């Protein structure tokens, strides 16, 4: 009998077949970290089986975990997750805000709780992500992360041996300034009203101001340079307001700004038709640029960048705006110049175009000031 007992114990506890051991995958959690200069957005999948081991999800102990049980244990899950992930700046810990909502996802080995968090750091310098979830309860656990920034991705595996990853953005990082340069150009090209404003500015540039926009200019380069001056005055001006807003010196309601932008287009288009201001239009354009600068500002304001990075971002963004505008001028100006002597240009494109632009800008202005929906655009 004693021998039988020994055999039973023997055959229940030892494995005769070492080869079939690792029949499943060990414990992993999956993170996607979207990283923007000083803030992170985290999407995190944690296995229900692992949570069960530490905090217990199977409340009624029927060997199955239901969505109801997960919801009941929501707070415990989020508290536990928060204890296993930290974001720090150079000197202090940054706050990670965990979304109170949980979702479910499936990986190849079962169901996972989907946890979302956002973190923001006030200070500058490289941020660090510290992962320690399950490390004191499961030596085989790994946090498998994809760190994403500006469209590029780095795979990272957090383990007890390497629990920390530095999210580094150096100010010298060519990507950093490049990112904002691109954003600046993007804002010009994607914002329909900025393109319209440029077109309205461009239309009279191939006609002489002295003639009240009646006669075409003779030479290409002087007219082109005048045009560039106007555009650059615009950039410099909006750079000023952009900086004031970004440094929190000035704030202005976005509704008001959008309406005023439409108003500047309207005024410019009317000036084309009536030729009120003929010389030194760049001064007026600079004034308008001040208004347009407010419209760009929200982009940078939302990022809450540290000072040194903000300066660099501003530089990049403004260069991008300028470059974006020059590209548009370089495409449209030669076309206008080529057509300038034709009646088609003078009557249809210049007068008709300015008229349509004035009408569109007027409707925009009404829409934006009075919060109406008049145009599809």
């Amino acid at each position, binding site marked *: 009998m004693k021998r039988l007992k020994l*055999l039973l114990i023997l055959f229940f506890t*030892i494995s*005769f077949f070492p080869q079939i051991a690792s029949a499943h*995958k060990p414990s992993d959690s999956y993170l996607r970290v979207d990283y923007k200069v000083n803030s992170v957005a985290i999407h995190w999948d944690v296995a229900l089986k692992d949570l069960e081991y530490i905090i217990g999800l*199977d409340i009624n102990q029927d060997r199955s975990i239901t969505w109801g049980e997960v919801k009941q244990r929501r707070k415990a899950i989020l508290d536990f997750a928060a204890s296993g992930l930290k974001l720090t700046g150079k000197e202090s810990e940054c706050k990670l805000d965990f979304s109170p909502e949980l979702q479910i996802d499936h990986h190849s080995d079962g*169901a996972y709780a989907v946890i979302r968090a956002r973190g923001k750091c006030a200070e500058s310098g490289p941020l660090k992500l510290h992962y320690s979830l399950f490390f004191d309860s499961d030596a085989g656990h790994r946090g498998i992360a994809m760190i994403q920034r500006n469209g590029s991705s780095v795979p990272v595996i957090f383990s007890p041996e390497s629990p920390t990853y530095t999210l580094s953005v150096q100010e010298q990082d060519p990507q950093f300034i490049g990112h904002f340069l691109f954003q600046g150009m993007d804002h010009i090209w994607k914002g329909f009203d900025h393109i319209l404003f440029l077109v309205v500015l461009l239309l009279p540039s191939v006609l002489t101001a002295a003639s009240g926009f009646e006669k075409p200019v003779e030479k290409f380069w002087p007219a082109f340079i005048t045009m560039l001056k106007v555009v650059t005055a615009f950039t410099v001006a909006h750079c000023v307001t952009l900086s004031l807003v970004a440094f929190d010196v000035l704030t202005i309601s976005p509704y008001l700004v959008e309406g005023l932008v439409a108003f500047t287009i309207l005024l410019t288009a009317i000036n084309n038709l009536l030729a009120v201001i003929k010389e030194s239009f760049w001064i007026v354009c600079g004034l308008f640029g001040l208004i347009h600068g407010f419209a760009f500002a929200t982009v940078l304001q939302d990022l809450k960048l540290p000072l040194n990075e903000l300066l660099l971002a501003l530089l990049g963004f403004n260069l991008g705006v300028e470059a974006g505008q020059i590209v548009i001028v370089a495409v449209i100006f030669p076309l206008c110049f080529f057509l300038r002597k034709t009646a088609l240009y003078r009557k249809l494109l210049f007068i008709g175009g300015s008229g349509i632009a004035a009408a569109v800008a007027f409707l925009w202005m009404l829409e934006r000031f009075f919060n109406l929906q008049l145009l599809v655009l």
Partner: protein
Amino acid sequence: MKKIFFFIILSFYAGIAGAAPYTPDSGSEVLETLPYSLSSTSSADIRKLQKELLGSPEELPRALTLAKALLKDASTTGDPRFYGRIEAVLSSWWKLKNPPVEVRKIRADVLQKQHHFDEALTDLEFLLAHNPADVQSRYMQASILRVIGKYIEAKESCQAMEGKTGALVVLSCHAGIDYLMGELKGARERLEKALQHPGRISPSLIGYSSGLLGEIAYAGGDYRRAAEALEVARKLSPEDPYILSLLADLYLQTGQADRVLELLKDESANDTLLLRLALAEEQSESTEKVYAVQFRERLNEARLRGLKVHLREESWFMLDIEKDPNEALQLALENWTSQKEPLDSLLVLRSALEANNPAAAGQTVEFLKRNNTEEVHLQKLIQKLEGER
């Protein structure tokens, strides 16, 4: 190299993404089914022990109680999560060169399950030097030596058990090695005879020995006897994944894919069995390849953490499902450096043939010939390979 890097990045995307997050409609929706545990310790008790241990991590008796409960769950579920948990529970002693005997015993078991065969053998040698009558450690030693192809040493371990445990245990230990060394017929006869009059022996041991008999009969090409013995084994231990995989391989070999799909339909959680399901799906030429998709996903996720214990399954998958014999051959050869069971050798020979690279199988053929293999499937492949050369 570039290709590999690209693959890693791609599989990271594929792996990390999951399916798609959703909010279940009903609170009663079951998201996860937990395996039944054989240990008498409930998961709530385990959690309590775990919490207490975090307060005093160096208290050995409590740590051992918890580690043993986890080890039982590890054996019944096969889920490698438990190995990491055991290591964490015993973390105060785990990295020691000379841990307490009880810790070393558990460590050896976990190490061999993680395919760290050399480290496991070192621990077992210490344990057996300390207590030569430790049958459990001795059998584990024999099993590992058999898997890594050191048959002479494995036989010595079997011999060392004589008189210290039941006759059928020792006989099975020897038979499992003899049949790989040119004594297939003798091994089978001895096992048949012992099983005819088993006497008062635990059903689980009879189940194990019947499974081994099935394995030997299959190696000899006697599919009918193999099926009988494996059915007996399955009745006695219906959940044993090893018996299930042997049965599945037999059905696949004899063109009975539908039976594999039926037999394993609830077993897809286990990678080795999921692979058999994918192979059956491939063989039955069903248009839907759900198991192959699932297996590919699991491979991707295992690769994310650089896991290499799936080499055998990966190689087989590459060969028969992805139809990439070159890749399959590389994986099979890498796998063969650590384990040399008939299936491991079979994959080397098959992929070398299909990749038109018979020379790559040279070492494996030499090993099999040196051991006078009588495994009929291996013998046929060796003939083919030598015909091509």
